[in-house]
């Protein structure tokens, strides 16, 4: 085995890049290698719906280019998959059989789509959307498609459905929850979003599961749990994601649903950190500081990556992770839905819906725990900060409820200017 690298980052997306930048702030020279199974420059899964729609060109989505990587003295190994981790002799094995030693290892392998156990699904050609190659395949498939079925009404399914319907495809979304985007919005907001989609011609089959899938000539047939049948040219499976953990088998690194980490993103193995969609980390809202969740969002991958990078480099400026807060922005048919925080950790103190607008504020006593809006102007980043700092909004409560954006900017100016 050759000389071990000082830092080995597995993954080249948001968590890994954020760690890389944090490392370089403190250690400009330590040798650093980044590995990605994708044969591409670093890119974000979040941009993929726009690759599908044609708004983004695959050649223009790279988050960092070669010259930047060179300037940061990063060796990027593309198209290589880590197949095993050995924490005793501090090495990883790659899919070409080679072995690479490390002093400090970051697991930032993100998540893969969950493919549900539906009889017949494995026998047909279906699409998922997580990797750039998936997006290009889906984009290319849309051309010859008249009708499509989307399994799952989470963000990925909803984005894809919008793209498809805008491309003139007839779309049916099948979702087992009684409403769309159940993880992100409450029933009222979901209802507003559903109306927009149905107005655009999307057919929603809510509260339904796919019971069986079969090929029907060139087409695909899906039978639902109410025995109704759908037929389409294209099937997209977007029923959720799960951390990429297979390569950790036998490594001894403690996992639950994801890789378990402490507030410095350290795993149970010495010299090994994890961050992003693969990590299961502190829950900001849980009373029990030991509770661990997978937040699965881009801003948190960035945050966790920064903490991991600082910790790996021994940066004394490290501020430990405060815990995951759900944060989502969702633009659909030129409307803006934003959710910051949780709906179920306090009482609703303002709620209004109507005329394409929606706003809900949830507080626990005088502390903000969540704010949710559709076409309602407020600054998500300022709200995140207010939640995370547990700011006492008592003195400005009335003003905050009346005009959250203005009052929150006032709090900002008094508190962190």
């Amino acid at each position, binding site marked *: 085995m050759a000389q071990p690298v000082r830092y080995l980052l597995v993954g080249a997306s948001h968590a890994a890049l954020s760690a890389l930048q944090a490392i370089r702030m403190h250690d400009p020279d330590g040798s650093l290698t980044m590995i990605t199974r994708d044969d591409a420059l670093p890119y974000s899964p979040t941009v993929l719906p726009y690759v599908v729609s044609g708004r983004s060109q695959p050649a223009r989505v790279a988050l960092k280019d070669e010259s930047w990587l060179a300037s940061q003295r990063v060796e990027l190994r593309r198209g290589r998959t880590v197949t095993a981790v050995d924490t005793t002799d501090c090495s990883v094995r790659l899919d070409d059989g080679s072995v690479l030693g490390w002093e400090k290892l970051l697991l930032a392998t993100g998540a893969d789509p969950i493919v549900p156990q539906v009889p017949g699904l494995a026998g047909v050609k279906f699409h998922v959307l997580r990797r750039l190659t998936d997006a290009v395949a889906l984009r290319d498939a849309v051309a010859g498609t008249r009708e499509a079925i989307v399994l799952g009404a989470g963000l990925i399914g909803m984005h894809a459905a919008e793209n498809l319907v805008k491309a003139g495809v007839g779309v049916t979304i099948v979702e087992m929850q009684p409403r769309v985007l159940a993880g992100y919005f409450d029933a009222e907001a979901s209802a507003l979003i559903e109306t927009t989609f149905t107005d655009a011609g999307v057919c929603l089959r809510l509260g339904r599961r796919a019971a069986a899938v079969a090929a029907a000539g060139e087409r695909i047939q899906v039978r639902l749990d109410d025995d109704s049948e759908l037929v389409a040219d294209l099937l997209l499976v977007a029923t959720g994601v799960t951390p990429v953990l297979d390569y950790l088998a036998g490594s001894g690194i403690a996992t639950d649903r994801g890789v378990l980490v402490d507030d410095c993103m350290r795993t149970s193995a010495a010299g090994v950190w994890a961050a992003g969609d693969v990590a299961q980390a502190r829950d900001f809202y849980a009373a029990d500081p030991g509770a661990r969740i997978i937040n699965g969002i881009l801003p948190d991958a960035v945050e966790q990556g920064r903490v991991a990078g600082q910790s790996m480099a021994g940066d004394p400026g490290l501020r430990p992770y405060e815990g995951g807060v759900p944060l989502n922005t969702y633009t659909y048919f030129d409307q803006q839905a934003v959710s910051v925080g949780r709906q179920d950790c306090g009482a609703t103190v303002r709620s209004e819906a109507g005329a394409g607008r929606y706003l809900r504020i949830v507080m626990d006593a005088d502390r903000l725990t969540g704010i949710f809006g559709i076409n309602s102007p407020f600054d998500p*980043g300022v709200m995140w900060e207010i939640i995370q700092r547990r700011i006492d909004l008592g003195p400005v409560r009335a003003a905050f409820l009346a005009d959250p954006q203005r009052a929150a900017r*006032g709090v900002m100016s008094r508190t962190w200017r």
Partner: protein
Amino acid sequence: MPAYNTIAFRPELCNGCGDCMRTCAEVKTGSADSANARIQISADGDTLALALCRQCGDPKCVANCPAAALDKRLADGVIAWDGSKCVNCLLCTVGCAYGGIVYNAAAQHVVKCDTCAGDPACVRVCSTGALRYLTTARIYNEVGDLEDLFAPGLSGCQGCNTELVMRHALRRIGPDTVLATPPGCIPGMGSVGYNGQTGTKVPVFHPLLTNTASMLTGIRRQYRRLGRKVHAVALAGDGGAADVGFQSLSGAAERGEEILFICVDNEGYMNTGMQRSSCTPFGAWTSTTPVGERGRGKTQHAKNLPVIMMMHNCEYVATASTGFMEDLYAKLDRALAASERGFAYLHIYSPCTTGWRFPSQDNIEVARKAVESDFVLLWEFTPAAGLQLTRDVSHPVSISEYLRVLGKFRHLDDAEVHEIEAAVERNRQFITGLAQGQHPAMARLAADRADDTGARS
């Protein structure tokens, strides 16, 4: 990474007129609807909140962008938005804790400040000075490339402001310099070296406290005779300048010797055990003005050495502070140029963590507060223009905000604080009066100048 220019906001000067927002909207969108401005100043109770891109050094909006549409430009530090790459996902707005990048309904995408390519329109129309475009970064970039002419590892106290002054000043003045550092903190921390090794990379010597300006006079005259252009520079403490070194200083100034004399004023003899000097302010604890059963710190007010130097009708006199580096550098440049023609005197206030008793990380903040409270006034004098204030003195913060951070004033009672307040107010009026040319002292200087010109012609 270089330092960058930035838009600064002082809410206490803002009258809420809204010109900045209307102008920004006009420049960026062609209509004066403030809602479309990239800068938003809103009132929340008695707070004026500023929502504006801070052009962060480590921007989260950029890290959160999945489409590579945001980029922190290394050249000018601006976070640039590329509309051809933006996918409207709004994740950047989640990363920004300053309301600096927001969705704009009219534009149908996020908008943010681009500082108008270094000439921000909002700043141009701000009539109260609440918005300023700080270009201080320029000096750090320029000076950062110059060689530090002091050796590394000087043994100043932790957080020493004087070390900062020395290193900055000599970097700027450059290698063609003979430096005099009379007894005080400056040689104390090693300017003249240890064990036969010098602490500077330029010729340096250690005059007596009493003869700094006369020795420099001789050196400068000798170099001129040899036809060599060499800066003769003194870095002296307030004791060495105002007390025992004063007669040679006054003599050299009166004769118009071509010297740059920098007084680093830390209000006492800090190197030898924190004794009082004539620059120590009223009420201050020092080891010779103790605080106890009877003692209440110094019982006299400080003498105003820079004003005394001005009355020598020097080529250039100025006061400066490390809390205001842009101003300090401008004055250093002018003082250096003036020292080619005659005597230049620069008085730099230098808070002392050890002798004034405050935490070592607060030095610049203390320096800034001294100026913001008008305890220290920033001005400059040239024979042609007379005395000019270089910083507005009409909106001081309360003097107790300054006094209370300093251990040497901690014992003061209300009456003593009032005494200091009154002295600060007298000095403010005195200097303002000089600046407006109404003071008899200015009239006398003007008359001297007229005589001078008359005599020469």
